[in-house]
């Protein structure tokens, strides 16, 4: 079996994505605003995906599109 990078709880790879430097800067100056902006950004840009982890420069997303259809 090939080794999966950044696996979720089922061993599938999480989607690696990211946001602008402006949003990343909020992480240090206003952590709550950072979380809010990241959530809002991905709700708009990648609907159906859920943010599960943020570690510069990566934001990791889980594919919940099937769950939304149910």
């Amino acid at each position, binding site marked *: *079996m*090939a*080794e*999966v*990078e*950044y696996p979720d709880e089922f061993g*599938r*790879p*999480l*989607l*690696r*994505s*990211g*946001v*602008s*430097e*402006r*949003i990343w800067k909020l992480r240090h100056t206003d952590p709550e605003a950072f979380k809010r*902006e990241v959530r809002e*950004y991905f709700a*708009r*840009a*990648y609907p159906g995906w859920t943010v599960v982890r943020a570690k510069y*420069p990566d934001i990791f997303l889980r594919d919940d599109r099937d769950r939304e259809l149910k």
Partner: protein
Amino acid sequence: MLNDITVFDFETSGLDPVNDRVIEIAAIRIRDGQVVSEFSTLVRLTDRELSPKVTELTGITPEMLAGGMDETLAFKILRNLMGDSLLVAHNAAFDLQFLHWGMQRIGGKTFSNDFIDTLTIARDRFTYPHRLEDLCQRLGIALDGAHRALNDVYACWKLLQTMHEQEPVDNWVNRLGYLRKYPPPVWVPAHAKVFPTDNRYEPKVVG
């Protein structure tokens, strides 16, 4: 031959690989038939406005791009994900040119990976039309949300698998067909074997 591949796709602000920009990148690395890495990001446009036509085609809006990743970082992550794997794209002449010019802009480099163009294979094997969504429909491949890069990447991978099962695609590595009625691509990788080709059409049914 397909044991280590990267299927990738760009959505772009236009058709000119030198002057237009990549606005979305998606790529999956597949080893031994298993997806081991997924990457998809919107890329911030810094010095131009997004055409409404692009928004109409892709669903990507200027507001979405405003929070997107910077181009330099996006291309570095893509380069790292690709490694030395075989690149796969549908209409690779387009995506490879944007990859080249993106890498040129951020670091004055290019790539030397081997590649497969699923469009070139499809033109040889199937009658017109050859858009990804047309081929998916013809071959029974699910494609939800065409023209968002990650959806197109998965469809392209399934298309490659299907065509490889029908007849091995080994002979198509680094071959890049272009329609004879148009000029060849302005830039191609040095190792590409470029050749003119024609669309084939279903015979017209009369009566």
